[in-house]
């Protein structure tokens, strides 16, 4: 771990100013990922700005009937909040699918948004990695890539975003509220994380001197159906090989009226295809239509040397999650049986 200066921010403005003064500073919230990265010398900030005193721990309703969740609310508190559990159960379910109870108790909403890939080369400073050390190369592409990206990868980087929560937020259509020196900015979740392209070191579109204040969930979707289905190498405490978040409504004529579906574990960001979703609207919630949608969602998928199985697995996972949602039997995160 590299030595660093510790600053405790007492106000949002002070945090922003500290970030402006120290361009390589990092904000510390729960620290569940950042401290790990620092211990492994993957993250080497010279300044740590502790934001745990900032007033960002509220969950409140928004004027338009949505929900605003403060940046420092813990993952556990989000998952058990009555409004989240009632109106956005998809979000609660995705959070409970991730990490362990201890980690969820410490990890925050903003930290979850900002967590970095778990690619093992990224974590090992004795190996090259374009994301960690730009220009050093990507050993994952010719090497161990069994759990790497099948969508949206670049020559330089095939890493995936590890979050479960963000996959649900992508499906629900959340917005990230950030504040910088020039004031507030709202970033749709779909635009918050970026594809690696030629700058894999950048995970998000957040500017270096901006602070995440919280997330806003859109107005309650009446009669929603949902499921979060996560496929992983063991039944708990593992990152997704593939996950699917389904946010659906079906009208009185049994036709799909809302279809928002995001995939996790397959790309550098939660993956959505709104054009494919649009084709589901007005059509019956049938397996044939789900399969057609899944194929379209995965149409651009490209396999690396070891992860060809993920393409088909992702298709199957989406179809199953859609079936679970449509039949109002969402995947339980405590009973590991998939139905």
């Amino acid at each position, binding site marked *: 771990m590299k030595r660093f200066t510790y600053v405790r921010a007492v106000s949002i403005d002070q945090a922003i100013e500290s970030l402006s003064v120290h361009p390589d500073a990092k904000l510390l919230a729960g620290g569940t990922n950042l401290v790990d990265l620092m211990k*492994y010398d993957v993250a080497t900030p010279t300044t740590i700005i502790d934001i745990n005193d900032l007033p960002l721990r509220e969950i409140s309703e928004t004027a338009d009937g949505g929900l605003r969740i403060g940046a420092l609310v813990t993952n556990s508190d989000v998952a058990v909040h009555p409004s989240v559990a009632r109106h956005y159960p998809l979000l609660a379910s995705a959070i409970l699918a991730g990490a362990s109870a201890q980690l969820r108790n410490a990890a925050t909403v903003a930290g979850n948004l900002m967590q970095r890939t778990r690619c093992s080369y990224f974590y090992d400073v004795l190996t090259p990695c374009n994301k960690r050390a730009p220009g050093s190369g990507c050993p994952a592409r010719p090497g161990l890539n069994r759990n790497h990206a099948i969508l949206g990868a670049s020559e330089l980087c095939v890493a995936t975003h590890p979050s479960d929560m963000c996959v649900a937020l992508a499906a629900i259509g959340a917005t990230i509220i950030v504040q910088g020196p020039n004031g507030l900015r709202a970033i749709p979740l779909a635009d918050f994380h970026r594809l690696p392209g030629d700058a894999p070191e950048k995970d998000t579109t957040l500017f270096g001197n901006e602070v995440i204040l919280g997330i806003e969930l859109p107005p309650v979707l009446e009669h929603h159906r949902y499921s979060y289905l996560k*496929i992983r190498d063991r039944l708990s405490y593992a990152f997704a090989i593939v996950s699917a978040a389904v946010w659906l409504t079906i009208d009185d004529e049994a036709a799909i009226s809302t279809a928002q579906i995001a995939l996790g574990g397959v790309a550098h960001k939660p993956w959505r295809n709104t054009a494919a979703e649009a084709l589901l609207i007005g059509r019956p919630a049938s397996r044939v239509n789900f399969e057609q949608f899944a194929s379209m969602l995965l149409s651009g998928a490209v396999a690396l040397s070891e992860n060809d199985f993920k393409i088909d697995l992702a298709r199957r996972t989406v179809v199953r999650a859609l079936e679970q949602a449509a039949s109002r039997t969402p995947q339980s995160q405590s009973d590991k049986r998939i139905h």
Partner: protein
Amino acid sequence: MDQEQTVTGKSIFRIDGPPKVRGEAKYAAEYKVPDLLHAYVVTASIAKGRILSIDLSAARQFPGVVEILSHKNRPWFWPVSFLYKDAAGPPGKPFMPLYDDRVHFSGQPVALVIAESYEAARDAAALVGVTYKAEPHATDLARSPAFIPRKHRIGVAPVPHPTGDADRAFASAPVKIEAAYTTSPENHHPMELFATTVEWGDNIVTVYDKTQSPKSVELFLKVAFRLIGRKVRVVSSYVGGGFGLGLRPQQSVFLAVMAAKSLKRSVRLVLPRDHMFALGYRANTVQTVSLAADEKGRLQAIRHKAIAATSQFEDAQDPILLFSASLYRCDNVKLNYELAKLDTVSPCDMRAPGAATGMFALESAMDELAYALGADPLALRLTNYTERDQSENRPFSSKALRECYAQGSERFGWDKRSHAPRSMREDKELIGWGMATGAWEAAMSPAPARAEVRLRSDGKFEVTSSITDIGTGTYTILSQIAADELETPIERIVVRLGDSALPFNPIQGGSWTAATSGAAVQSACRKLKAKITSQAKKAGVLDRRPGTELLSASALADLLKLRRGGELSATGTMFSPPFGKRFSSATHAAVFAEVRVDEELSVVRVTRIVCAVAAGRILNPTTARSQIIGATVMGIGKALHEDTAYDHNLGRCMAHSFGDYHIPSNADVYDIDVVFVDETDTQVSPLGVKGVGEIGVVAVAPAIANAIFHATGQRMRDLPITIDRLARARSRAS
């Protein structure tokens, strides 16, 4: 004392539980030592080559750094490798950290930073700049040439000679199968990290080390560091999991003592989890098994070939084929055991070393043969049951495997199984039931074990032995044995273990501790009891009613008063058994597993395991059961999760933490039902004990693989059985 009052055979909770819960049980890294320095290892990033330069300029400037050792400035140590041989070492040249500029494996220690704090050592280590001249490396077993090891590892039975003519019998048999199996490398990750605290003194060097043998570490250090003349004491009172990695003196103790000797200071070295991947692993294998039978299912031929990974500098060997010639009756057996050299650290023993790997292939093949015959897999085992060890042509000292099959299958409900694959289903899940046989040597230690028991002035009996308790319950069972032999309540027994200053015991491995060290305690107690009885008679304080303890506390106090405070003690020694040649001895198990497979998504759940074990006399059903449960969980990991992933381009292990080296989580473990079948064995050891350390893991992986076949119709021959492998098998089939 009658049966009702004995404590051996009873479920006594482990006596080391309360001190562990209270934090009083100290592990190697927890001892408080004055003026302690801390060390941290700098590791190699290449798999093979030479160190060209080591830049220490930045690291030396780091506040708190005291010294940085490398091959250039390390203290002198013997340049001849045979002096570094240890009790569990294989043929070859043991790895000597910081010996010269050669890099033998990625993750190898190349420098050691010693500083005033752990953090300073760690953070300075990151500033050490090493440049290398890399050479082509090989870490891929599948691409490495195999050879027959020239020298056998001591303590590992050589591969049995062929019997009959397996090739001809195979060719002419009506029913046969032949299949290739692979197993992945698995790394040791006991909860306690490998750690050493060296307390350096002018006359005595006390080494608190995580080891399964304080005595062999003591001998190793004395020789390796020329500490002869100085007293070296190695303490390992509590060990947070051994599993075989602690059988050899590890890099941590070598480096910590090197640093302490060099600086004449006390030093602690705790290896972080990622460095543990460079300490030794269960060798990955490529195996081929051919089995042939007549129409009635009687085995006509067994051929089993195994190629196992080893390092460039040692021929690590494990008994992979240990049971291939002896588990079933067959006249024509041919076994081949080969190694392939890789640029990795040497593989090492890991719970049921060899057997757990070889039996996966053999027991999977038996299941394949059962399906080729249209026979029930359990019935096939019974058809080929043998009462004799035909590879050695001698009887077993006892063998209650038939009872394991009977009780295990009944508990499991095996008779309700439908034979055809894919024939059991519930909702979206296919259900599979599979079984496998397990076996492990029931041996006593080849080296003698000693114990001392002493009547203390407080009326308690103190049992001492250098043997460790690696979490298995050794403290508890030795207390039970002593209590019964001394006819004394267990509360009056105090056991001290894990200290090389205590009576000699060999390494704690091979499932032989209960039988061997237990017998030494038994012998010591019997001698002491005779002494006490005769002295008490002489003194007239022996006031004994039948069924009461040997001597009441007050009578003992009287006795000691008469001896004017002098204490009474006795020493017992257990030599390896003289009857070893007349019998073969093994523990056996039958494991039955239920899996549920969501075929569409390739997700497996192991929902039920019944493990029936025959292990002679069970000293403590609670601690024994815990061992079997733990081993079963390890077996689930072997079947489904554990895989040390190597990047062969880099020649580097890319697993660094529990995040990328998966072991089962709680959610992966459903019902585990352990049955100990009655097995009386008067031959195997003085206590009738066979040991339960390893047997639990052997049959779990094949039982699960066979259950997956029953569920899906897909034969999974490569461990671990991960989602990608299942998905590919499904798409090949469709």
